[in-house]
């Protein structure tokens, strides 16, 4: 018993040391901590900015910590529920539902200067459940048709033209019966990459109430089109996950790929003359193949104490302000969400930026409803079953709907 008391005493002593969170001592800087999931180039940009900012003054210090997307959300939720965690979290808008439900982010409606707020484009103000929960420094995550002009001088404008590429660009150069070059390759096992085809046939993932809308003729037609690209037109390889697709395009075994902004720098570094083009229009419906686009935004931890709030909000305004967004657009080809930057000459600074913006104009915002996560998971399996030939496109669409409804019920009605 005495041993136990000693142990408990030690635990209390250690625990007591960890709880202090008051203002820093006189003369010490206020530390603003940010957790984020920025990719390599953006991460370096943020770290460089933080280092320069910290060197420029003595009263505030910005500290950044990278976490992988899933890890970021889960670690943050548990930390914030315990009253801990960073002051700001940066991530894609589709996290807002989960973070909003768990009350681990604080509405910004009354905290941000209205004049500053008015300077954002609509997609730069991330809302959930009628409240402003995030301020973006860019809109992105959008898939685009990425092509190598040495192999494909003119990108396809329609989905019929895309299908026709198989006959000219998928080639068996060594005569062994297997293609050595493909017209197009992308991670077609992942439902996120299926969305442009779904939208081109007029489909979407959920209705306004967050209910899945997957068992539709539009979904069936979109799945069938992707199947035909592989089995009927020979446009794409028999199997391709993301790493395989990336490697094939990077090493000139594919004339084009479908990929997002996180990848373009890597292709350029590998020596590919990357060009972007909006995903083609579906001549049957007249609709563009629209990928999802998501604002990437900073949100506020409710645990930030009142004494620290002005400092944290000041850093938030700097990180999402005109100067940073213009610099990011120039150096990283991100699409700004400040109206003044979007309308400035910055957008003409690179062909990649202009082409990326052209795709953004043919995209749909990623839903911020928390059901989105369950729908992704529900789509993945049946979609793969169709691709494996185990079920038909119609059966795949039915299974997607069934699984989405079950997952949503399991998660939210438990």
């Amino acid at each position, binding site marked *: 018993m005495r041993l136990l008391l000693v142990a408990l005493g*030690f635990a209390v002593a250690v625990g007591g040391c960890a709880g202090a969170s008051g203002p820093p001592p006189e003369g010490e800087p206020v530390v603003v901590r940010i957790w984020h999931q920025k990719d390599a180039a953006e991460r370096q940009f943020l770290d460089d900015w933080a280092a320069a900012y910290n060197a420029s003054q003595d009263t505030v210090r910005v500290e950044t910590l990278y976490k992988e997307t899933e890890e970021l959300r889960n670690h943050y939720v548990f930390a914030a529920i315990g009253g801990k965690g960073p002051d700001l979290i940066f991530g894609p808008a589709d996290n807002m539902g989960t973070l909003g439900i768990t009350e681990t982010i604080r509405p910004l409606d009354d905290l941000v200067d209205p004049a500053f707020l008015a300077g954002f484009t609509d997609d730069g103000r991330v809302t959930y459940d009628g409240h402003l929960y995030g301020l973006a420094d860019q809109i992105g995550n959008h898939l685009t048709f990425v092509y190598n002009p040495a192999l494909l001088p003119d990108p396809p404008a329609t989905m019929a033209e895309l299908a026709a590429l198989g006959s000219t660009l998928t080639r068996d150069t060594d005569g062994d019966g297997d293609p050595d070059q493909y017209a197009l390759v992308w991670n077609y096992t992942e439902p996120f990459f299926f969305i442009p085809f779904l939208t081109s046939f007029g489909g979407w993932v959920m209705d306004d109430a967050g209910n899945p809308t997957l068992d539709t003729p539009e979904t069936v037609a979109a799945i069938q089109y992707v199947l035909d690209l592989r089995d009927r037109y020979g446009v794409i390889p028999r199997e391709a996950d993301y790493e395989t697709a990336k490697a094939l395009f990077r090493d000139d075994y594919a004339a084009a790929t479908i990929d997002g902004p996180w990848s373009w720098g890597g292709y350029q570094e590998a020596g590919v003359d990357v060009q972007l083009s909006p995903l083609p229009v579906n001549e049957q419906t007249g609709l563009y193949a629209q990928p999802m686009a998501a604002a990437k935004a900073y949100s506020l931890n409710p645990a930030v104490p009142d004494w620290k709030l002005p400092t944290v909000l000041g850093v938030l305004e700097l990180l999402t302000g005109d100067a940073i967004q213009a610099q990011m657009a120039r150096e990283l080809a991100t699409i700004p969400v400040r109206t003044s930057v979007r309308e400035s000459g910055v957008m003409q600074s690179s062909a990649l930026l202009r082409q990326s913006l052209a795709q953004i104009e043919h995209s749909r915002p990623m839903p911020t409803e928390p059901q989105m996560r369950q729908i992704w998971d529900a789509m993945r399996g049946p979609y793969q079953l169709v691709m494996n030939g185990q079920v038909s496109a119609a059966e795949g669409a039915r299974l997607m709907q069934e699984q989405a409804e079950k997952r949503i019920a399991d998660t939210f009605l438990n």
Partner: protein
Amino acid sequence: MLNAPNDAMGVEAATLASAPQRTGLSEAGRRRWFLAALLGPTAVIVLAVVAFPFVYNVAISFSNMNIYTLRDWELIGLDQYAAVFREPAFWSVFLKTVIWTVVCVAFHVGLGVLLAVLLHQSFIKGKSAWRVLLIIPWAVPQYITALTWRGEFNFEFGAVNLLIEGLGGSAISWLSDPVTAFVAAIITNVWLGFPFMMVIALGGLQSIPKELYEAAEVDGASAWTQFRTITAPLLKPVMVPAITLGTIWTFNNINVVWLVSNGGEPNDQTHILVSYVYEAAFSMYRFGWAAALSMVIFAVLFVFTQVFLNRTQATESVY
């Protein structure tokens, strides 16, 4: 000078003898405090990293904790346990977990012992080099090996199908079909796990006296008889605890099955129980349900360990 040590010891003895009067503690009391000082930090660490999480998990398993109730969850009794057993996929995932564990451990032990016996033979040349080569799969981080194997199972570009086609067979769509994807995960895990059993078996073999084999040879015993009557019984005390550990590790090995099958693909049909728990907790935020399932896993492994160790009397030599 010759008396000095004795004098010193006398002073020390007198000091010790007078200590209880100064501190108010008896010799036994001082020993208890000394013991407490040594064990205290360990006890705190055990409480913090083992006991508290376990008790907390038990509590959550009786609660309604999910994404909506993270902040104000309540105890609801056995509902989550009932929900676990009512889950349509539970029994098929459980069966897959048993198959996964039995097949993997059987290959780990079989291959491990076979290679250890081979490496123990005097006619094998370059034993050190062979040992290094055979231990490489175990030395490389699991996630690198798993992702590498995933690439090798690609239908068109993977080495496995190129090898099969080179031998005149037909390429297999390994990762697209639930059965072959599960087989691919098992092959990867066998590759990762046999070196551990080989090292354990090799250590056990080296402790068996050579005289036993010499006597058996004099009696005309065949190699198989020698293995059955000498090697196997004398390896048992070493191998049974290793098999017990290997079974628990394999049963709970989320890394390989998750990375090779890309999180249960296709269509969540390659999950084992532990990856199913992970998905329920961190993808679907069903914390109460996931905690209940993790307690079921704990119970299964606890019962297995008790029965296996009792049946094999693996610890009899310890006591």
